């Protein structure tokens, strides 16, 4: 049986796929941010084995393709006898990936805070956690906002890879539609436009944040 697709049918289906892309991006970004903070704390803390292992964690996720990471999560968990749905493997994999990059971006921001801030707060008898919480992170956060939002674009684009392990987001939806309609150029053109619509506002926002925080202390 042959089914006719109008352009609106294609767009409608793609929009539904885009919702999953958006949902996965937000999930990975929020969870990745939380895990990233923990990784950052370990990476910058005073416990040598924790520092080393967090450094290893970051280097692993920065030094291997996202697709391999997703395969490892997807097939690794199944190996343990647990059946993971594609969406869960995608969310876990992307969360790890995001956390490693965010931890590294934020580490750079923390290290940009002058040594004098650490010394002044230390000489006021603050603990390391208090120094972080009240003095260093509030200032680091200010410089971190723009690169963090900038990185969110990478996360959105990274979700495309999850189509390979079978998660039906924008790219995967596009693949099915291309097969069904025999109009791959139109479909993938619309898929690309979909990603652009998601990412471009983020890029613009990051750029405006950069301008806003550049050279202003508060």
């Amino acid at each position, binding site marked *: 049986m042959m089914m006719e697709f109008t352009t609106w049918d294609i767009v409608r289906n793609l929009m539904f796929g885009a919702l999953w892309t958006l949902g996965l991006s937000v999930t990975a970004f929020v969870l990745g941010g939380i895990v990233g903070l923990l990784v950052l704390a370990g990476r910058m803390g005073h416990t040598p084995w924790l520092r080393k292992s967090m450094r290893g964690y970051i280097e692993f996720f920065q030094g291997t393709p996202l697709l391999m990471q997703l395969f490892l999560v997807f097939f690794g968990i199944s190996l343990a006898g647990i059946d993971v749905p594609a969406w869960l493997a995608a969310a876990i994999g992307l969360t790890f990936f995001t956390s490693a990059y965010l931890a590294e971006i934020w580490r750079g921001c923390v290290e940009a805070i002058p040594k004098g801030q650490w*010394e*002044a*707060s230390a*000489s*006021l*008898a*603050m603990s390391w956690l208090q120094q972080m919480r009240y003095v260093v992170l509030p200032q680091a956060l200010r410089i971190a906002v723009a690169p963090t939002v900038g990185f969110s674009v990478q996360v959105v684009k990274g979700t495309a890879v999850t189509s390979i392990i079978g998660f039906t987001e924008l790219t995967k939806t596009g693949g099915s539609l291309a097969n069904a309609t025999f109009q791959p150029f139109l479909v993938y053109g619309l898929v690309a436009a979909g990603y652009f619509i998601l990412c471009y506002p983020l890029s613009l926002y990051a750029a405006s944040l950069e301008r806003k925080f550049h050279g202003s202390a508060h």
Partner: protein
Amino acid sequence: MAAHIDASFVRIDGLHKHFGSNHVLKGIDLRIKEGEVVAIIGRSGSGKSTLLRSINGLETFEDGLVEVAGEKLHAGQTDLRALRQKVGMVFQQFNLFPHLTAGQNVMLAPQVVKKTPLADCEAIARQMLKKVGLDHKFDAFPDQLSGGQQQRVAIARALAMQPKVLLCDEITSALDPELVNEVLAVVKQLAAEGMTLIMVTHEMRFARDVGDKLVFMYEGRVHEMGPPKELFANPQTPELQSFISAVH
């Protein structure tokens, strides 16, 4: 001044410090009485800043002992918070927290370290800012203040923790000449109120007029020590002689 069994309020015994192969402190012994104003002078590289920063543990040392108001600091000690509650510090570069107002800068440590109720912290902050003549700048951010004002806020911030000793590390060196005096006036007032002060300084006149004790550091050792007026008038070593004639 309260009577002490041991007259030393700050005691430094046999302090040794290396930066790699560079032996920067070669056995420092120093006794400071409560309420004394001590000026540490010497060429750059003589170890004077390192000595000062050892007193609150900003620099580690390999051998020796520091004791401030009964709180001991041993070589390699890592938990320094008890000591640091007794030792305040003011820095050359002010190091105010730029994301907080002057008032918040002063309030922060009493609030988070001493867990003082917020209303009391604010009262302390206003009182301390008033002491340095800046109570009207409570809500100003550091970048809205002149260098001299920032340094006075930094002094207020240190005082808010009610330290027993205040360390001043070249606190006027980063200031424009016309702003030096407003900061020195605050320090002079603290000295008059009986605060124990240990300062590394290039202000020789101030050291002579306000100091009770002058410490001349040379190549990692206390080379000469005594009442400032005597030392300036009658230096015993050629090194101090040449240092004094170089800065005058």
